[in-house]
């Protein structure tokens, strides 16, 4: 069964008297373990699509199924549970909680969603070490560079071992070195864990690493093609399980 199913997805917003159609009807499926890049120019609806896939927003029509569950019209609390357990999200602007340390940020999804018997703290520490931040666990986001903050966000996204990871321009705010490192970590996860990875980007270089490219324009899919020869990972990177 596909990991992600999108059926007749539409999204419109009202702006005063006007209605703006952002997504005009999308249909596609993503099998487990696939790495999909969603591309398009600014205003094409990429981020909106990602938000709908993550259950962060409600479509105007259509539905999204994640791992067999139709999520689009679930009550907010149920949706929160799905988000917490099934999806890891990586934002372009990191979106760390500024008043929590790196360790606490990584631990937060565990505190919100997991069974208390699991040793979240140990796993959080291991994850931070694996992204190279073993000595910065007690630092606050304001004390970390952009690349370091994004690595914390990555670790946070993985703490509950989600089957799906969604990333919105994860390297958009990073320099090339940090960007490469973050991409490496993501790709490694996709390959070693079989995590389904959906990545929104406008950068064709980034998209070259994906198995499949879906291109949006004006709210519609204009291209959906497999990439038979995805680019190799920038360098070896390890994101090991704790």
């Amino acid at each position: 069964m596909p990991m992600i199913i999108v059926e007749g997805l539409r999204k419109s917003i009202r702006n005063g008297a006007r209605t703006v159609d952002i997504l005009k009807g999308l249909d596609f499926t993503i099998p487990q373990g696939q790495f999909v890049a969603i591309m398009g120019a600014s205003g094409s609806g990429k981020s909106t699509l990602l938000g709908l896939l993550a259950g962060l927003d409600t479509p105007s029509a259509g539905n999204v199924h994640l791992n067999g569950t139709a999520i689009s019209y679930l009550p907010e609390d149920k949706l929160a549970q799905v988000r917490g357990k099934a999806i890891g999200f990586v934002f372009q602007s990191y979106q760390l909680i500024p008043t929590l340390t790196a360790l606490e940020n990584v631990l937060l999804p565990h505190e919100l969603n997991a069974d208390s018997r699991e040793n979240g703290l140990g796993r959080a520490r291991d994850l931070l070490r694996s992204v190279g931040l073993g000595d910065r666990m007690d630092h606050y986001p304001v004390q970390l560079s952009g690349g370091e903050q994004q690595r914390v966000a990555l670790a946070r996204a993985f703490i509950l071992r989600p089957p799906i990871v969604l990333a919105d321009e994860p390297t958009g705010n990073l320099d090339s070195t940090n960007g490469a490192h973050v991409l490496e970590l993501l790709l490694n996860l996709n390959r070693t864990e079989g995590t389904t990875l959906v990545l929104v980007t406008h950068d064709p270089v980034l998209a070259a690493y994906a198995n499949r490219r879906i291109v949006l324009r004006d709210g519609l899919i204009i291209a959906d093609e497999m990439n038979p020869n995805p680019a190799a990972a920038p360098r070896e990177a390890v994101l090991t399980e704790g």
Partner: protein
Amino acid sequence: MAALSYRSAAKIAAREMHSSRGKFFFVILSVAIGVAALTGVRGFSTSFRSTLLDRARSIMAADLSARMFQQPTPEQEKGLDEIAASGVEITPVTELLSMASSAKTLDPLLVSLKAVDPAKYPFYGEVELSPAMPLKTVLNADSVAVADDLLVRLNLKVGDQLKIGTQLFRIASVVVNEPDRLSGSFAAGPRVMISREGLEASGLLAPGSRAGQRYLFKVPRPRSGAPISDKAVADLKARLEKLLPEAQIIDYRETNPALTQGLDRATSLLSLMSLVALVLGAIGVAMAMRAHLQQRLDTIAIMKSLGARSGQVIKIYLLQTLLLGAAGGVLGVALGIGVQRSFPFLLAKLIHVDTELHLQLSTVLTGLAVGILTTLLFTLPPLLDIRGVRPILILRRAVEDNDDPFVTGIRRKITKNVAQLGAALLILAGLAAIATTLSDSVLVGQVFSLGLVGVLGVLLAASAAVLAGLRFFLSKTRLHLPSSVRHGLANLYRPGNPSAALLAALGMGVMQIMTVYLVQKAVVSELHISAAPNLPNVFLIDITNDEIGGIRALLKSQHSVTAEPELLPVVSSRVVEIDGVSADKAKLKNFPRRMLRTISLSWSAAAPTGTNVVAGKWWAPDEKGAVVAVEQRQAQRLGVHVGSHITFAAQDKQIVATVVALMKPDGQHAYSRAEFVLPQAALAGLPVVWYGGVHVNPDHVGELQRALYAAFPTVTVINVAQALETVRSVVIQITYVIQFLAAFSIFAGVIILASSIAGTRYRRIREVVVLKTLGATRRRIATVFSIEFAVLGLVAGLVGVLFANLIARVLLTRMTVAYHFEWGWSLGGLLGTAALTMATGWVASHRILGRKPLEVLREE
């Protein structure tokens, strides 16, 4: 289901507070100011009221007085002993008329004798003697203290002998002032104070003598040291009324209507101010928490995107709210105690009373509880709003509707969101409950609670309507307006700008402040009238009809007489029938039947000065029929009302008079002594004696007494200047305290409003940055914001001032105080609000203008 532990929630809550200490201090301060105002005002007013009531007690020299017209029966004596055994102190005061003479003059003089137990009397206040000394050292079995009028008339001095009854007494001192002079009888004859042993020795108390007996009662103070409660006095009064059915029992509050009125109004006003402080504090909290949660939207959205349920997020911020409420409450109570202690120092120049300050635990706990409760209540709506925060905010910041999200939210909340509606009702119910508990005045508690419910709803609707109207105006005139004006007005509809909420909060705050101001101004104005310096302070007794012309001329010629004299004609009569029932069978309440045989009638063409008609209507000046206006309390005792018929008999004439009005005197004028007033024509031909009241410069009363005695030796002069001065000074003190506390409440309210406005500054930061980046000058940005602030302030001021006048009118009407629309102050309130909004907005925002855009963005 996994739950966010309290420990984790508390950690996140505390960590946020620690990282944004400055912003949270603002919230704590808002709570603290509200609680401080509440604790300070309430605490001080409770202490002051207690001191005031002690002074009021001195006017009766007791808590209660029972005027008896015959000796108590053995059962009644037993009842009084039981009362004494329960801790109540009792002392008798006997008053009677007698003749006194001296060896120096041939003619004896009618004197007003007052026998007291100097060891106990007076329970409150002091008898002022000249030379000054305690009463108990002056009065013993063979000495007396006399009024200076007696010395004048009998040509005596201190140390001389005076014969009373069969006994000779030494004049030991001059009575300058008795604390209960006003509540005693105004009998003819100068005052002579004598001990009870002296009275026994004089032989005057033979069986059948017409001595008036008063028992004075003092309720024991509670062991805690708290003031004597009104309930304790009322309970004893009820007990005495049952024990002594023929006695007139009055409590200290009834001795002087002006004072009673002053105290009642002070209570109402002080309650009002406490409640206003409470609501203002709550407004400050609500606005601060709202602004705080607005800034937390990103964090809340992130947490939700990570899988946090609304309940988990609410838990975090609920804990934060509790911490803020508790911190604000503690700080507020500490500030309030400081305020309470500073009041006497600040007022020392205006009022000369040592206010005993008890640190009342109940006031402290109330302040703390109210602080936490109002914080919780008023943060419920923004907390519940967390449920509506959509995680998509992280990806897309655009707000979909151009409608004011708050108003849209209100509609949505009412139609779809039972929880928010429930929260709103809970807030109102909670505030009403707090108001009713805090209020010492049922009237104020009721009006306030109901007013709050109605006014809040109307204010929100009015604010939304005004904004809609402005937007309509803008849509029609858009391009014709200067761009900065257009921009400033459009800011009111900035997406996410809760203009309606801020307007409602500001409007409510202005309304509260103006209401306090308007009500206290009207009450103080009336109190000043009732404590006017030219009210009669010397009374003339037993002026015959032949003497009245001469008296008028003499008073006119005296420079020390500073106002027109008030002259009261009195016709002696008796009551024969009440509503067809003969006097010996009529049902009376706390009124001895034999008193119906000595009734005084007066006449007046119109309601006399200082007398209010409380039921019915006064007659026309040319009325010739037999109608009567009866003093309210007297009417209650006789069981009559408007429409009743009373048959009076005077000489051999019978007058069947219909009661057309009930009247309530203010106790300050000569006519205050009149209990039955008829048209002059009804009393034509009957013998008349006159009583007069004049205002005399207190330093020249002696001169007037001598002049009157020389020309009219049979006219008695009763000098109550000192006693009235006590009443007057108490009433004036009430006015000072009311004004001072009103000013404090207003000041606190202004600070709270300012903090609410300042809390909106964070939304402007990004706008300023963008404008500057686009090339806008500081002057241009300043103009845009000034227009926004000014319009906000004017609209809030208009709504607030209008409702303030409405509420003030209702409250004042129910307090029977005249209401006048104050154009000047209302306009001042309107413009003041606009000025305050602009000034505060600028003080809070000016720093942003001077900084580089990137600096600001980085900090954000």
